[in-house]
């Protein structure tokens, strides 16, 4: 004898059905729904394709490789050549500056004949003061200047040569003249 409780326990434990279930209750989802779910599942695990900035043609890789090689060899070849000859930058020294300023300085050294004439006329006026003839002596013309005075380097070389030759007096005189002209240039208002 089985009671309702036993029947229910059998039902719960799936040993015996309590009532007969209609057979056509065993329906299934439509095929379209299957496709939708499976497509979604497939797309969810699809690995993401890396974003391509552009689609390069197939020949672009060898072309790029060749261009890279050419560029590399060009750079290496040019780096192996001796450097082009360039004018050395002169060192900035007083002597170099003086060399660069020799030409204009020589051009500015002009003869002063007029004072000589005026002094001559004034001396004839009876002052009799011709003692300052040295002070009023005409300055040497640019064309009369010795060739070593045309630039400071030659001038210094000449001074050195005189000193080596034992002519210290002329060397000192030349050196004093050199310094005088450079001081005159330094204070010149045209500079």
């Amino acid at each position, binding site marked *: 004898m089985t009671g*309702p409780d036993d029947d*229910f326990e059998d*039902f*719960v434990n*799936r040993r015996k059905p*309590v*009532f*007969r*279930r*209609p*057979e*056509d*209750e*065993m*329906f*299934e*989802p*439509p*095929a379209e*729904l*299957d*496709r*939708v*779910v*499976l497509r*979604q*599942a*497939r797309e*969810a*695990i699809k*690995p993401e394709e890396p974003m391509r900035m552009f689609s390069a043609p197939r020949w672009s890789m060898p072309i790029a490789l060749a261009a890279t090689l050419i560029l590399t060899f060009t750079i290496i070849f040019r780096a192996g050549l001796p450097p082009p000859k360039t004018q050395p930058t002169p060192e900035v020294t007083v002597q170099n500056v003086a060399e660069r300023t020799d030409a204009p300085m020589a051009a500015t050294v002009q003869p002063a004949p007029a004072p000589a004439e005026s002094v001559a006329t004034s001396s004839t006026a009876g002052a009799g003061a011709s003692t300052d003839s040295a002070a009023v002596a005409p300055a040497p013309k640019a064309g009369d200047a010795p060739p070593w005075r045309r630039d400071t380097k030659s001038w210094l070389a000449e001074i050195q040569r005189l000193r080596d030759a034992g002519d210290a007096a002329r060397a000192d005189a030349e050196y004093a003249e050199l310094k005088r002209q450079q001081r005159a240039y330094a204070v010149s208002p045209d500079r």
Partner: protein
Amino acid sequence: MNAATFTMDGITTPENTVRFARPSRTRTVETVSDDEDAQLMLAYARGEMRAFETLYSRHRGALYRYLTRQARDGEIANDLFQEVWSRVIINRTRYEPRAKFRTFLFTLAHNCFIDHCRRTKARPGGLRIEEADDADLLPAGEDTQPDAALSRDETSRRYRAALATLPAEQRDVYLLHEESDLSLEDIARVTGVGAETAKSRLRYAVAKLKAALSVTEA
């Protein structure tokens, strides 16, 4: 632990589309371990589509019937079915085999249906479609009762009508028991009640269905 499933053969075509054979009328019991389901889910999380196809073929029918009987509307059931599997797919990387996969699946289904009821402000136990069938629960008169045995359609109609009259909680527990083959403890876990409460609901549901169907079979 063995689980009962409906016989379905997943067929994978070269186009990588899967078709499922129509269900057989007989309900057979396959030896499918829950560990195997869990392993299939983990394999799918690693990117094996074939694992998902197997998993889907095992549970698609039960889940669809559960949702269809709960929603009592084909379109809504389709939407809920898709939503449940979407949640399975989305949560594949967070899935941990701490519980049976079926428990996990039907918990999702239960929650989806509750969410749907909240969205539509529908009472889960409300009658909408088959209210007309309620009259069929009453014993038919002598003059209207067919002489021959009731057709399958008639039996099925009465079954659905009886199911529709059940309170939502009882119907939920009964459908989980019938379709998911979960144990009472698992059903209680899915529905968020105690095991005794679930058992009590199931007892009432079975008694009402039995009464309704025995009347028709008399």
